[in-house]
């Protein structure tokens, strides 16, 4: 059914149709609307049986989900940014224990400086946590990916993170096609755990493992993720047969067939990029884009296959490996190992900095002439940067960086909540 609704609401309704049995909630923008909507559905009885638990921290949220998943209940939570970092120890634990928890990450920057706006630093900080990570391009895809996520998680006994851009998607009112409960029930089988805390058949879960088996346990986690590379396309195909639309999968390509320049990106910025590509195509530029839907496991073979015909690859990412460059681009480079082509990393949109069509036009044109630096910070204000660097040279006690820059810009910081 077509419906005009907020991204968070759409995701909450999709999650509810997956019949979660335990939901842990802790507020943090821009994720909060999702758990608020779910909480209401539990409280008014629409979503039942389900336990909605208001925990005292994100660390507890993930820990409660660990307990409930280990006791055989379908478990869900959502977070973002500082919340994801606060739960990090439990994030690794959930995957290490092989518990199929599904979590939405409403992508937001990480402080300091504290910033509530969108980028991908939060989810990517957990890239090696053993969770599967899916990135939604649109609200439709975000809600669809949640349905696929439960299926995947439970089949593999691995937790899945569904990442959607904070505010840009979570707070956007858009038209989405809401599935019916019957469709979701047809697609998502009942959760049958591989391991469960059951007095009838007692098991110990979480025992100490030493060097004699640790490597093997870890290898198996990797092997499981490799299995996901096979499963995901087949689940996406099945999804299409039940719901009638393409959603999910490993990657999406757009106008890459004969492209000499291929952009690589994740999330909602793909929409803007496609618009720019359309315009540039009209002018005769051979340019296309590869959208990464599945970031973990990273679809190396698919990425290589999609990019190998190009002359140059521009990875545009909303994250940064401080002291190295890009995170996504490092992963893409690995897929391109041995191929001779130009590779560019563009860091863009950190902390909600708008990525405009105008900037992308300029960027892609420069790239097409191979006039781009290997590492570019899109729309960086060099005056601000240099002013601070000079201040530091001039005064030993130059003060806190972020506050200096704010004073230079002369605008009041966005309200934090």
């Amino acid at each position, binding site marked *: 059914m077509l419906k005009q609704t907020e991204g968070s609401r759409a995701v909450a309704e999709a999650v509810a149709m997956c019949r979660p049995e335990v939901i842990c909630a802790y507020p943090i923008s821009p994720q909060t609307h999702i758990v608020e909507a779910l909480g209401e559905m539990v409280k008014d009885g629409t979503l039942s049986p389900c336990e909605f*638990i*208001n925990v005292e921290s994100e660390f507890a949220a993930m820990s*409660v989900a*660990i307990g409930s998943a280990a006791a055989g209940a379908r478990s869900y939570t959502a977070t973002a940014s500082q919340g994801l970092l606060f739960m990090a120890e439990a994030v690794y634990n959930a995957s290490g224990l092989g518990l199929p928890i599904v979590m939405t990450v409403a992508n937001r920057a990480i402080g300091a400086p504290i910033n509530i706006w969108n980028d991908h630093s939060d989810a990517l900080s957990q890239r090696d946590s053993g969770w599967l990570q899916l990135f939604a391009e649109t609200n439709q895809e975000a809600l669809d990916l949640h349905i696929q996520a439960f299926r995947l998680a439970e089949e593999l006994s691995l937790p899945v993170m569904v990442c959607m851009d904070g505010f840009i998607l979570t707070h956007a009112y858009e038209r989405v096609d809401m599935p019916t409960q019957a469709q979701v029930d047809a697609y998502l089988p009942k959760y049958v755990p591989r391991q469960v805390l059951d007095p009838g058949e007692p*098991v*110990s879960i*979480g025992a*100490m493992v030493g060097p004699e088996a640790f490597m093997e346990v870890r290898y198996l986690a990797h092997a499981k993720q490799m299995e996901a590379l096979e499963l995901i396309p087949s689940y996406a195909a099945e999804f299409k047969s039940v719901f009638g639309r393409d959603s999910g999968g490993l990657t999406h390509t757009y106008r890459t067939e004969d492209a000499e320049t291929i952009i690589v990106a994740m999330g909602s910025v793909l929409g803007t990029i496609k618009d720019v590509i359309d315009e540039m195509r009209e002018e005769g530029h051979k340019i296309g884009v590869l959208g990464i839907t599945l970031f973990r496991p990273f679809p190396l073979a698919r990425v290589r296959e999609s990019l190998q015909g190009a002359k140059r690859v521009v990875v545009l990412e909303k994250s940064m490996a401080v002291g190295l460059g890009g995170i996504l681009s490092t992963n893409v480079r690995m897929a391109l190992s041995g191929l001779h082509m130009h590779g560019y990393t563009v860091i863009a949109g950190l902390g909600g900095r708008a990525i405009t069509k105008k900037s992308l036009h300029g960027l892609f044109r420069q790239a097409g002439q191979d006039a781009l630096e290997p590492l570019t910070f899109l729309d960086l204000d060099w005056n601000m940067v240099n002013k601070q660097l000079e201040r530091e040279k001039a005064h030993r006690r130059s003060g806190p960086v972020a506050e200096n820059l704010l004073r230079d810009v002369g605008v009041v910081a966005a309200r934090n909540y």
Partner: protein
Amino acid sequence: MSFQPVKFYQTGTFTVGNRLLPPEERSVQASAKRFNSINSGHRACQGCGEALGARYAIDAAMEATDGQVIAANATGCLEVFSTPYPETSWQIPWIHSLFGNTAAVATGIAAALKVKGLSQNPKTRVVAQGGDGGTTDIGFGCLSGMFERNDDVLYICYDNGGYMNTGVQRSSATPPAARTATTMAVGPEPGNVFGQGKFVPAIAMAHNIPYVATATVADLRDLEAKVRRAMEFRGARYIHILVPCPLGWGTPSQDTIKMARLAKETGIFPVFEAEHGEIKSVLAIRRPLPVEDYLRPQKRYAHLFGKTPALATIAHIQELADRNIRKYGLQARKEGH
């Protein structure tokens, strides 16, 4: 096969132990029916109070629930010594997640049991357990959250007064003046600081949860009775058990029970139970012993008894014990003649 029950006589107390008790009140030290939830073969040190306390607590919980207990366990000695790969001592469903999240993991298990409904197994109950570090320090946020929500979990803290598993460091439950690896017995004020203390049973009571109790491994029947009582309530419950650690305290393995008893008889560790935030009963002290009797045998207090004994420090500890006796009304009434 005929079964010869092994009688358990307590010694060293003013009571005469099992003999005078009716059979149903006698402790089940050795019985074919005992659950042995934590089986033999684990790697605890000889005389480990924590192993003993856990064995009695969990078996009592099993008894109270017809063997339907799921346990969540914090990182710490109990977790490590009970599950050396590929072996496990646990005869019950058991999960270890992290050091600081055990109360929350237990909340999750309880939620799953609830949502799975009465259809599956109405009797199954959840016990969470951790050391003092896992409870009073790193797991304190999750513990307080679980209390405040009144989740249906019995949380048991095995208090040996320090981070023993990592080599005897100070926790917020380490008593004043005690030497640990991080409160060295050097300088003008050797050992742990006096500080303000952090008695978690009192903090648990401040949450007004249905049941809070303290116990020691010196009174195992009292411990069992408290676990059974705890299982009669739904909601958050907390039992704090003093479990001497021969390694960390520097006491002989065979003196674990004796040390626990001295902690109680000096007033250092008040033993009581409370319901909905109000004290209901205390284990009375017949004749309070001087704290020196408790401190002197322990190597962690050796610096108090050097060439020039630290009289002021000992007196300070005595004051704290006396305050416990007053505060909790521990002194038994004089027997009438």
